[in-house]
């Protein structure tokens, strides 16, 4: 039964992956024949300040994305789970960014953030006319905001679903015991959402590690190298500089880190046990 799936996975995931590992020990510019280079590429890549900077940026993007997106989507999700009509209307609005492709979002934001013709000029608010994506100190934060804007709706939806699964009887019992709204949230909603939080966080963290398209279109890694995160560094090294050996090293690093992080998250959270959270109901 699993045969076709395994074959597909093998041909389109495992084989290319092994190819990249082999290529990371070779020197190839995409044109001639690959030449064996030993561990040259590895030393060269890991010592390269641009790549080191990319690794640092990737960690920042991953951590800050989670710190920003997780609480916002959790709170929005809880809010959207309510059954009042105005909440339903707002939920539809929150949902909108999910409908746009990352490239379209990036192009739209590039136009909105343009200091000369963008939002600031249109609305007549000078403060909005900052050098948003042209200032190396600002660009990364702008990128993090736009990524958040794109992904918060998806994660809110996960939380909304999660909250609606929580049996109402639990809240009724808490109410009888005199628990307020905050206490209900802390002692019922949050613990009940444990697995939603794990799922959503894993998606956020692994997603941030490999995030590419929006940044590629919005800033192309610039200004300077201010937003050149690891996946972008890999792409630019491979398909702009045609240094396939070095790009493969970065790819292998990404695969290893990505797999390790998702495995760790799974282990640490005990999600593999998946015990019930609703004993006694």
């Amino acid at each position, binding site marked *: 039964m699993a045969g076709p799936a395994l074959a597909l996975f093998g041909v389109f995931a495992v084989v290319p992956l092994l190819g990249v590992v082999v290529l990371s020990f070779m020197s190839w510019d*995409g044109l*001639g024949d690959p030449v064996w280079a030993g561990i040259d590429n590895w030393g060269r890549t890991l010592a390269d300040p641009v790549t080191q900077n990319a690794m640092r940026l990737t960690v920042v993007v991953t951590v800050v994305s989670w710190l920003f997106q997780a609480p916002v989507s959790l709170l929005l999700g809880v809010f959207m789970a309510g059954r009042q009509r105005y909440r339903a209307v707002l939920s539809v609005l929150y949902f909108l960014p999910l409908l746009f492709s990352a490239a379209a979002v990036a192009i739209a934001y590039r*136009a909105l953030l343009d200091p000369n013709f963008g939002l600031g000029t249109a609305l007549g608010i000078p403060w909005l006319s900052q050098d948003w994506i042209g200032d190396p100190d600002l660009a990364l934060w702008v990128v993090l905001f736009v990524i958040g804007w794109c992904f918060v709706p998806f994660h809110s939806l996960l939380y909304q*679903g999660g909250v*609606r699964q929580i049996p109402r009887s639990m809240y009724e019992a808490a109410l009888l015991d005199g628990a307020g709204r905050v206490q209900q949230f802390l002692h019922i909603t949050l613990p009940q959402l444990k697995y939603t939080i794990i799922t959503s966080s894993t998606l956020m963290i692994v997603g941030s590690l490999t995030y590419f398209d929006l940044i590629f279109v919005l800033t*192309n890694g610039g*200004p*300077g190298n201010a937003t050149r995160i690891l996946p972008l560094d890999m792409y630019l090294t491979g398909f702009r500089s045609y240094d396939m050996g070095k790009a493969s090293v970065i790819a292998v690093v990404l695969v290893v880190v990505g797999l390790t992080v998702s495995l760790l998250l799974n282990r640490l959270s005990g999600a593999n046990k998946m015990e019930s959270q609703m004993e006694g109901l």
Partner: protein
Amino acid sequence: MRLRIGRRTGAVVATVTAAALLAACGGGKQPGGAAAGGDGPSAWALTGGTEEVFRAQFDAWDAEHPDQEFSVEWFANDAYKEKIRTAVGAGNSPTLIYGWSGGTLADYAANGKVVDLGDSVTELNERLIPSVAANGEVDGTTYAVPNTHTQPVVMYHNKEVLDAAGVDVPTTYDELLDAVGTLQDEGVTPIALAGQSVWPELMWIQYLTDRIGGPEVFQAVLDGEEGAWSDPAIVEATTKIRELVDAGAFGDSFGSVNADQNADTALVHTGKAAFVLQGSWVYPNFLEAAPELVESGGLGYTTFPAVEGGAGDPANIVGNPSNFWSVSADASEDAQTAAKEFISTEVLSDDVVDDLLEIGAVPPITGLEDKIAAQADSDHPSFVYGLVRDAPHFQLSWDQALPPAQAQELLDNLSQLFLGQIDPQQFSDAMDATL
């Protein structure tokens, strides 16, 4: 009741997840299969711009050679650049390879991926402007031939803005620097620069280096001479760039300005900036976005200013001499023969020259003065044609001239130089390390 809603929510989540996954999967570019299949000649060409002129050439060829029809695939510029090198490397390239010459062509030639065009281009070469044709040669052998119009980089300016500030068109660097000060006092950005795209910054270092030290300075870089990036001319050019940036010549937010969306030319035709240094390919954009300005003669264009005491000829130009056809060495014998014949009969033929002139593009062919003057709007094409015809040297953009890895390093370091993250000395040191 609760159960039903719960299920519905679950279904929505599942649908959305699936949609997101599908969207992610669909993100990759997947152009049609390799055109190398079969024995007939094939070509990959670019959409937009002169697409119609190319289509007419292939149609004319196909009509005359029904047994050797070209199978042509059309790509957007960036998608093409990414695909073609991989295709050439894998031996799957089309018979006719569209290119920009420079470092990539040299790579193709060194790996035996393109053939010597030999006699098939003799006749065409005699009609071409020599400084443009020279870009198709690698070590004296012609591997590529110009296939479309020529696009030098020129200085555009808004005459209304200059008049309001009482500034004359600068002919020297010092006059430009003075103009920067005056224009700033008037509250306009002196020079629009699309720093986010980085490549427009190349035009500044290219022109300044050429004006100060002549074409030999960059030739030394191409030849890989040790320390070539530390040449005094390059150091002076990068120092002048810093001088301009520090004087506020490009405003304080050039890093957010993007050339792909024409935000730099928009600054000029809306009167927010006075000058922009750009390729002649932006002219149609001026025409389209600000027809009144262009028709009233408010849009000026001129050569890059000279630098006092500089060794370079102020008539030298930089930019995109043309685009080029090469013939793949991996194609079948028949396809190669057909492609060579296509080059000698169709490429830049009289019909093509007329087609190009009609859309305001200037072909790199000698003796077109009268034909251009007879066009409806002949001012801009005449200016461009004169520039190219009289230029002792036409420098291909450095990012095309250099091998790809060095070109990327150059763009990275140049962007940091403009942003003030590195100084001219650090720029030269970093670039010398790539030689």
